[in-house]
């Protein structure tokens, strides 16, 4: 299958390892992975902060970059960005777009998937041949959980990983407090939420907290690093891409 990777602006710039793992994993599963080079950002930050005029060019660019009919699926290693493409782009297009934009948005929307959805629903795989012999706990990020309804899919993928010691995260479905610009505009409330999330994460004794969103992981990792917790975060894709032949080696500190 010809799959276009949407790296997301955050993934491309700050968390390339998560995107590399996504690319490598999809290639390993036998697919033709392409990277439309003009891609940038889905505009989620703009839309969630209340700006809908400003991201119009971003929404248009996304629809143009991924509209190519030769692209059978767009895979995103981010629940919130996939959610934005699927649920928010049409709001912007409805309000400030033209007919072409509305049509473009409607087309890309139907073939855009978050990674775990794509693996389980489209490829029908839960065992992707991964090997990761560590204690792991999974945080279901809010947008994956409630905007995309990925449900148990990431957990099914994780359970199939060889050697993994998957431990349940208490109050897993509670928000970590990131929320994009919420963490800046309401930094103290966000921190109070983060503190509880970190207590639950470290309480599991896991070496790794994983999730399908680099943004939430950045927030959780930033907190864990500040308290020198020793637990690190890894994107779900990095665990799934780790194999016996090319295992992911845990580096020492959380960051």
């Amino acid at each position: 299958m010809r799959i276009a990777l949407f790296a997301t602006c955050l993934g491309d710039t700050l968390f390339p390892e998560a995107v590399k793992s996504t690319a490598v994993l999809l290639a390993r599963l036998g697919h033709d992975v392409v990277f439309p080079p003009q891609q940038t950002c889905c505009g989620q930050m703009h839309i969630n902060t209340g700006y809908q005029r400003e991201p119009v060019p971003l929404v248009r660019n996304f629809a143009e970059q991924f509209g190519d009919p030769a692209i059978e699926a767009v895979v995103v290693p981010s629940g919130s960005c996939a959610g934005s493409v699927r649920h928010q782009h049409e709001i912007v297009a409805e309000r400030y777009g033209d007919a072409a934009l509305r049509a473009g948005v409607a087309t890309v929307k139907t073939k855009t998937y978050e990674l775990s959805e794509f693996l389980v629903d489209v490829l029908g795989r839960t065992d992707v041949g991964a090997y990761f012999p560590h204690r792991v706990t999974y945080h279901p990020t809010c947008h994956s959980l409630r905007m995309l309804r990925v449900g148990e899919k990431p957990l099914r993928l994780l359970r199939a990983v060889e050697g993994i010691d998957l431990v349940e995260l208490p109050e897993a479905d509670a928000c970590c407090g990131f929320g994009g610009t919420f963490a800046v505009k309401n930094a103290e409330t966000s921190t109070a939420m983060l503190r509880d999330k970190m207590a639950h994460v470290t309480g599991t004794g896991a070496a790794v907290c994983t999730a399908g969103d680099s943004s939430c992981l950045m927030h959780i990792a930033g907190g864990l690093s500040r308290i020198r917790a020793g637990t690190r975060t890894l994107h779900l894709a990095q665990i799934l891409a780790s194999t016996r032949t090319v295992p992911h080696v845990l580096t020492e500190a959380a960051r």
Partner: protein
Amino acid sequence: MSSSTGRATNDTFLGMPAVPPRSPYGTGHLRGERTFPRAAHDELGNEQLRRNLGKATHSIRAKRLAVTGELPDWEQLRDTGSAIKTDTMNRLPELLEELERKVTERGGTVHWARDGVEANEIVTRLVRDTGSDEILKVKSMATQEIGLNEHLESQGIAALETDLAELIVQLADDRPSHILVPAIHRNRDEIREIFLRHIPGVDPALDADPARLAAAARAFLREKFMTTKVAVSGANFGIAETGTLAVVESEGNGRMCLTLPETLITVMGIEKVLPRFQDLEVFLQLLPRSSTGERMNPYTSLWTGVTPGDGPQEFHLVLLDNGRTAALADRIGRAALNCIRCSACLNVCPVYERTGGHAYGSTYPGPIGAVLTPQLAGMHGAKGDPNSSLPYASSLCGACFDACPVKIDIPSLLVELRHQHTEQAGTTAEKLAMKAAATVMKQTGLFTTAQKAAGLGRVLAGRDGTLSRLPPPLSGWSDSRDTPAPPQQTFRSWFASAEGAAAMRAAADEGARHTDDPQEAS
């Protein structure tokens, strides 16, 4: 039309193209004094409050999940509730006129109040007409919203709350912190203190046992029930078809007020109307399960007009707009009027759980408050109105949407209100930054240049590769979180590099070697 203010129905602007009135600035309790982040700062520092709130919301959440889970048709009930409310909002003017007709036919009097100021004046006049200078209150959000108690007091009329939690708040000269459990932020030791200090003649040996606290309040209230001639209530529902009003409650004190006094005045927000009597079937299942986690609330009182020789002999219904038609006129915002004030969204909200209700500055706190308050009272973005900070008082986690018995998509409404705010606020530094970011991000060339510039962060990072201090406006973020310095190479440059190409080839080869493996199809 028996409007006591002499106005015709269509003056409430229903369906009219004119801009409908909001709740007037500076009246009632739909606006705090500080923005949400500033108010939250103080509340977050109160450890006791956080413990009380955390405990209460967690236990009520668990109860709610248990009783909603046991209904096989819970999802259908939610859909039905949502459909009935949506239908109601679509033909609100017609239903309200039907309600007025039926109430009048059954011997009640209907009054229309454009806003809280008018509603307060109407109630004051009605109380004066009875010759009484004290009233009993049934717990009511609408009267709190308009500040009725304070207004009555300024007019020399004493209003006594009879809901236990509401009484605690009133005695302590505090403000409610939750729609359903106004004293959620207080624990029993604090309540004992409040009773000792404020209930006349209370036993000085009173302890903090809940049963004994309740008994002390009951003794105090009982005497009031027997002697007070006027009561003011809200309404959970008003049935257009029959003119029936409904109040649901847990303690029975509401029922005392609804039956014992000679005159009953009900203040009801116009969105509380339901078309048919049978609709109650749906909402009497949805409401108690969502709010208190009970299968059924202990007391449901229904009354229709007046019945000679039984109950209050005079009944007035005040229909309150106070910004509701303004919300109704907004295609997207009108969904918020479907709210049945069950408070399920408050109880699951991680932000409410940390800050409590006071941080929202409004009678309506929590997720629905963040939506409803700016709609009823406006945001006045350019003037630094605290209400314009409310749509941002959410991480958009969506727990409220999942919990809402009438499926109000609160996160989408918040995003919509944020948009309205940025449109109203004109050109701000933030808007310029957002514009600039979009300009950079829409052109790949500029974007990759910016990525390289971001790479300079490595220079500023400490030895562990993290940034621990960021400049404003990011300093709030960096107070409690480290930020990773951008890595050497972006994904796109890796993917375009020889190394990236080799890695992708190797992965494809490895995959090809394993194609004989039994693949599981799930």
